[in-house]
């Protein structure tokens, strides 16, 4: 279908642009690692403590690395008015949204892998037992977060204090995506003491889908002049 081709073109373009510089991905990973390192170093982590802190530490790191990435995603479009250039083509603005969102999702996902790897080593915690559940939570949590980051990145690109504006928009609104993800991750890591795993995943998936759909529908209004 035509739409998939366009989305793929935009995604591929973002990947290729990033590959030439590799600045965004590198800074996201480093930033995320630093946060995980900070917490690991600052707290004595007996197993009890680890289970309590680690989900929050990880998602906070993901949140900040994400915002870093979203900002840079639109910075690359700003240089030669490229975002505007894309609207010269007979392309549905929503396709531009999906393409950029998938790119943001992918980059953040890669950074997450790096962070989880570091957390496994430093916190001496294995994520393998609950891997399936954790992957689902990570996917949906990152999806909703990236969707908001994409639309807010496009909005913030119009302001004088871009990075700050994106942060001010992103954190209050993505707050519950992060909270519910932390909660579900914590439950998963402890082996789901409160029953099945479905509830936690469903909550994160539900809220993320709501925000993704809303962002998708509203994006065209952000691009119009």
């Amino acid at each position, binding site marked *: 279908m035509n739409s998939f081709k366009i989305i793929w073109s935009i995604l591929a373009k973002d990947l290729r642009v990033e590959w030439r510089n590799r600045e965004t991905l590198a800074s996201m990973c480093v930033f995320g690692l630093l946060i995980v390192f900070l917490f690991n170093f600052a707290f004595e982590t007996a197993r009890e403590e680890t289970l309590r802190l680690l989900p929050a530490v990880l998602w906070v790191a993901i949140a900040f690395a994400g915002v870093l990435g979203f900002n840079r995603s639109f910075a690359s479009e700003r240089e030669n008015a490229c975002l505007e250039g894309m609207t010269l083509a007979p392309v549905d603005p929503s396709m531009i949204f999906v393409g950029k969102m998938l790119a943001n999702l992918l980059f953040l996902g890669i950074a997450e892998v790096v962070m989880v790897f570091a957390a496994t080593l430093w916190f001496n915690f294995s994520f393998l037992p609950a891997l399936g559940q954790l992957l689902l939570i990570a996917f949906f949590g990152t999806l909703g977060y990236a969707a908001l980051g994409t639309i807010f990145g496009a909005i913030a690109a*119009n302001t004088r204090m871009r990075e700050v*504006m994106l942060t001010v928009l992103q954190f*209050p609104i993505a707050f*519950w995506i992060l909270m519910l993800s932390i*909660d579900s991750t914590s439950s998963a890591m402890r082996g789901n003491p409160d029953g099945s795993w479905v509830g936690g995943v469903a909550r994160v998936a539900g809220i993320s889908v709501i925000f993704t759909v*809303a962002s998708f529908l509203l994006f065209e*209004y*952000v691009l119009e002049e």
Partner: protein
Amino acid sequence: MNKKFPIWLHAALTAAGLIVTVYMIFLYAPEEMTMGEVQRIFYVHVPAAWVSLMGFLIIFISSIVYLSKRTQFSDELAQATAEVGFIFCTCVLVTGPLWAKPAWGIWWTWDARLTLTFLLWLLYVAYLMLRNYLVNPGRAASLCAVVGIIGFVDVLIDYMAIRWWRTQHPQPVVLGGPESGLDPRMLATLLVSWAVFTLLFFLLLRMRLRLAGMRRELSEIRHVLAFKVSED
């Protein structure tokens, strides 16, 4: 609305209402058992929270109207409501600690109402910041409308999520809501205060809208002048 309910009448009614409310809060409502006089902040705290919540609903509706109909009034309404709602929201956050510290010895607590109001406050801040920091003010209406819509979706989610979260991490209801049993005089005071706050909200909103209307007229005059100038 200006003909049937002129602003002066609205203002007079609000002033009268405020006097009645102050009387009821301090002289009519009985003193609360455990907290003492400080509890009376409740009659300000709750209506202000409700009004700021209503404010965002108005922003949501006018944002949708703007994106579909593109009327300037819907944009002005959204902006005016954001400013007035922000004030009431700040009010709640200020009265919270003023009440909590004397009553329970703690400055703050993440109970349902305060959490929701704080998140709402952050949304108001984000909305107002976006309005004021745009490089091209002509885009303000559309961009703010998008934020208004997503923001309200977030408010709904906040409400449900907070309730769910409290079932997982229960907390004693400290800052008291209608759930805790209320003396009928307290209830009456609360309802009157609620009504007056709503009246006050709409009064301030109308005044702010009048300002926006004047600005729009001024802008239109400037536009007409811009047409005439440099005709050579």
